[in-house]
């Protein structure tokens, strides 16, 4: 008989899969292993992007800094933004999409496990493609939104922008493939009884995010295709000598760009919506409203893009429309903030590290949100736009929002991923250092911005009234590096030496906590039947409010405390396959072959493109015609 909750939880920190070795990683189709791959890669890129930021801050610490040249600075600045957004925060969210969505909806894997592996490999290769150039001083240097016509051949004849144009397309492919996968997973792979309004909030926000990705990335893909054609084939989309309108790029970019910022924040919102109720031992306040506000934020997010363009002279009517639409978004977001506070209210707050980060999000994101609303007033933003005030805004929402949420999620879910607890002492150090340093870095930027400091400048004169603020920001950034180092140490130390984690170290309400930590390859030995939003709290022993005070519902969930292999249970698992990796590799060869089109090595370009194309086709055919899983 399956074990019951009464049995003492057996603890064993076995690796995610018994089969070790490099091949097991290269061929994995297990969403949990893919999540781990995403995690390592994204953390690497986060530190890489952070180091770029530290160099930026070192350069700007004092007036007339001479640490790096203007060219290098522009590459660092561009790659810092690009790295953090496309290679760090989005993939860090993808860690949780991969790891949590199947677990939270009670599935054995995602809908298309091999496509999932494919997404990861494309991301990794794309990340390498776009990152390596900086070591040769030819990294993209057009800013993270690469405004045309600066990025056309006429004004950027080097290869720098080529890397960006192709790299972002590669990364977009990864995100799009993942989006279709997760949309399908959430719609179709839910356990019996898991109807939409019983889904955990993280899964909901992740689900909404996938639609943002699916609808936002095509716009930037097209913008990039135009730019690429301009650069490689002499089309005239952004060619000002042919009468092109540079606003075309700006519109297409921001049609993507604004939804993108919600792509970055909604998963973090979802994560803390898991952490806060768990550690407050109270259900999420206003679950339906939280769902609807997430959907509304996403929907409105498609109607505000031009608020990044208030200085371009769109005319009063457009400014008004986009300004008002932007303000509207504050309403559903505010509802979320207040609902979190209401969830905390009356709770029994366990202030562990995850909880601290989770509370840090509303505390800090609100500051960024308020400056966002200040930007939404077009005349007012005329003084703010392209100044450090903007830089302050987006680091408060990105670092104070997305990163806080992601850290909360990492502390919360680390035991489930690796079977061991992160060290709380180091965790607290990490949080407080991070919290202080973060404010020290980014709060002064409000001042430097409103006191006239433009962004994206590699140097500035003394006597401009910015010295103090820049010095503070730089010191803060160095402290942030220390904080991050604490986290890195904690991560690797705890992975080997942390306390062993039981099934449910936090007394959490959702079903991913009913299975062993780390999660066995098959996830659920018995697929749970869901009868409420907080099934684990329906277990009498787990009810945070004491035995029997809940609705007396029968929970369809059992505590599974033993780990078997899928074969022992006779559960068919997706077979490992190298084909996603090979297909990803060939498609990246195909795309990066285009790189040489503009560089007078057309033969090489054709060889790579045709070779890559044929290989892609071949691998996809063999991928589709090989069976997904073994049969028992």
């Amino acid at each position, binding site marked *: 008989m399956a074990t019951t909750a009464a049995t003492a939880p057996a603890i064993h920190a076995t690796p995610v899969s018994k089969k070790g070795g490099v091949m097991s990683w290269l061929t994995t189709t297990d969403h949990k292993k893919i999540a781990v791959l995403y995690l390592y890669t994204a953390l690497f890129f986060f530190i890489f992007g952070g180091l770029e930021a530290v160099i930026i801050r070192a350069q700007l610490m004092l007036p007339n800094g001479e640490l790096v040249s*203007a060219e290098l600075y522009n590459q660092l600045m561009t790659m810092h933004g690009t790295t953090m957004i496309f290679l760090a925060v989005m993939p860090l969210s993808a860690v949780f999409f991969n790891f949590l969505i199947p677990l939270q909806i009670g599935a054995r894997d995602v809908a298309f496990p091999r496509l999932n592996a494919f997404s990861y490999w494309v991301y990794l290769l794309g990340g390498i493609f776009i990152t390596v150039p900086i070591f040769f001083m030819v990294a993209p240097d057009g800013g993270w939104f690469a405004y045309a016509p600066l990025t056309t051949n006429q004004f950027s004849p080097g290869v720098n922008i080529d890397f960006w144009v192709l790299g972002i397309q590669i990364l977009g492919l990864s995100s799009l493939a993942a989006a279709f996968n997760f949309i399908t997973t959430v719609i179709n792979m839910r356990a019996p009884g898991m109807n939409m309004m019983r889904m955990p909030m993280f899964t909901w926000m992740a689900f909404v995010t996938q639609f943002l990705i699916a609808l936002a990335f095509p716009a930037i893909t097209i913008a990039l295709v135009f730019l690429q054609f301009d650069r490689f084939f002499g089309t005239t989309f952004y060619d000002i000598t042919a009468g092109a309108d540079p606003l075309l790029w700006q519109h297409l970019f921001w049609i993507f760009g604004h939804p993108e910022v919600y792509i970055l924040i909604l998963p973090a919102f979802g994560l803390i919506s898991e952490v806060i109720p768990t550690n407050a031992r109270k259900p999420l306040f206003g679950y339906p409203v939280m769902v609807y506000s997430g959907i509304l934020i996403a929907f409105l997010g498609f109607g505000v893009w031009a608020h990044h363009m208030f200085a371009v002279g769109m005319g009063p009517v457009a400014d008004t429309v986009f300004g008002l639409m932007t303000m509207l978004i504050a309403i559903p977001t505010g509802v979320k903030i207040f609902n979190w506070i209401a969830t905390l209210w009356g709770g029994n707050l366990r202030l562990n590290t995850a909880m601290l980060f989770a509370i840090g999000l509303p505390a800090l994101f609100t500051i960024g949100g308020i400056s966002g609303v200040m930007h939404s007033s077009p005349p007012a933003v005329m*003084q703010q736009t392209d100044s450090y005030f903007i830089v302050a805004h987006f680091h408060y929402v990105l670092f104070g929002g997305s990163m806080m949420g992601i850290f909360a999620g990492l502390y919360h879910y680390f035991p489930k991923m690796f079977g061991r607890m992160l060290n709380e002492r180091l965790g607290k150090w990490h949080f407080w250092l991070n919290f202080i340093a973060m404010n020290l870095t980014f709060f002064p930027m409000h001042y430097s911005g409103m*006191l006239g400091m433009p962004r994206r400048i590699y140097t500035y004169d003394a006597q401009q009234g910015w010295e103090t603020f820049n010095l503070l920001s730089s010191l803060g950034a160095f402290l942030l590096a220390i904080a991050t180092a604490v986290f890195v140490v904690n991560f690797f130390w705890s992975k080997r030496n942390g306390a062993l984690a039981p099934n449910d170290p936090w007394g959490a309400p959702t079903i991913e906590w009913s299975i062993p930590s780390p999660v066995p390859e098959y996830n659920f030995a018995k697929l749970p039947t869901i009868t409420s939003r907080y099934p684990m709290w329906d277990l009498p022993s787990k009810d945070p409010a004491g035995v029997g005070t809940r609705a007396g519902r029968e929970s369809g969930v059992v505590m599974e405390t033993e780990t078997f292999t899928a074969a022992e249970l006779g559960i068919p698992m997706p077979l490992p396959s190298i084909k996603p990796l090979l297909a990803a590799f060939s498609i990246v060869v195909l795309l990066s072959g285009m790189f040489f089109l503009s560089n007078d090595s057309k033969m090489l370009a054709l060889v790579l493109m045709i070779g890559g194309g044929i290989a892609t086709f071949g691998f996809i055919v063999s991928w589709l015609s090989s069976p997904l899983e073994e049969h028992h």
Partner: protein
Amino acid sequence: MSFNHRPRQFVAAALSAGLVLALAACAQDYPNSTFNHHTEFNTAIDFLWDRLLFWGTIVFVVVEVALIYTIIKFRHREGAPAPKQVHGNTTLEIMWTVAPALILILIAVPTVRTIFRTQAPAVPEALQVEVIGHQWWWEFHYPEYGVRTANELYLPVGRTVNLTLVTKDVIHSFWVPQLGGKRDLISNRTNYLWFTPDSSLESTVWNGFCAEFCGPSHANMKFRTYTVQPDEFERWMSNQQSPAAFGAVTPPAPAAAEGEAVQVAAADSVTPAAALEPYWYPEEELPAYAIPTGRIPASLAMPDGLVGDPQRGLEIYSRSTCIGCHAISGNPMSLARIGPDLTHIGSRHTLGAGMFPNEPSFMFAWIKNSRALKPGSLMLPVGIGQRDPITGMVIGERGGLNDQQIADIVAYLQALK
């Protein structure tokens, strides 16, 4: 925001007071502050800013206080009873949907009003200035006066100026924080921006910046705006309209030199320059923030004791590569419009679009190898033996200039007041 007696405004000021207003007060310490009322444009923006700051502060305080209070009050205590399992409360949720909506309405109404007011066409009697962006310098064209200048914009106080913003290449953005918000200069588009420097302003100088990333030297695309008294403006303008006044070395120019200038001017200037006393913003009065602090590498320093001769400089200049890009009205050899107009370069206070003080030693280095000073600069190095950082080529004897020749050109250009 004029400090009238509206209580709300007062609260706004008080709340945000601490730092922000204190900062704004001492313009010397914060010379590029956006918090001031030097123009009606900035007044309108600051009015909105105060509203935004006021409501922002309230939201901030409400959220943070609620959070902190909740955390302290409900933090885990041993033996605390299990929390009540509340799932939601529609009334509360409606409240915190409606309250932000009301705040937003209070922000939106003045916002919309200000949008339409600040974007209305400028008054017809406004001073017209065409601002032309270049990688990486500014060209200012006064069509009514037929004057073109670079990187220094003179405006009379009390008169509305209507800027027509265009660019020769990529997108730039015109920003003088002290005089109002920014507006982009967009390829194939024309933008407008108008404001009126307050008539109570004393003659002074403001820093201006390019606020849209435009390539390697985006940081070095600065300019100065001088808001001067109307009569000073007229004097400045009449001097600008005259051709190069080579020989007039010290301001104010001696009468003789002035006469000379008028003579030459008669030939081709748009309006014959009236015999006004020339004016430009006096160097002694430049505030510290208007003096660039950029340094030049030792390798480009002007050798000690090197003295240039302006007359010789005129000759060398007039057959050098310089004339391929620059114009000096009064010098028939120098007519090109690619680089900045140099007619009155000697009267300007900065070099290289606000990068360096306009002093002989800096100009010497600049001419010798501008690209080593200003990343990406389109101006070719001319110093013999200098390495062009973009092409990697070393300037040879042919076409290159030696130190003495450069010093001569410097002397000539410095004399063009």
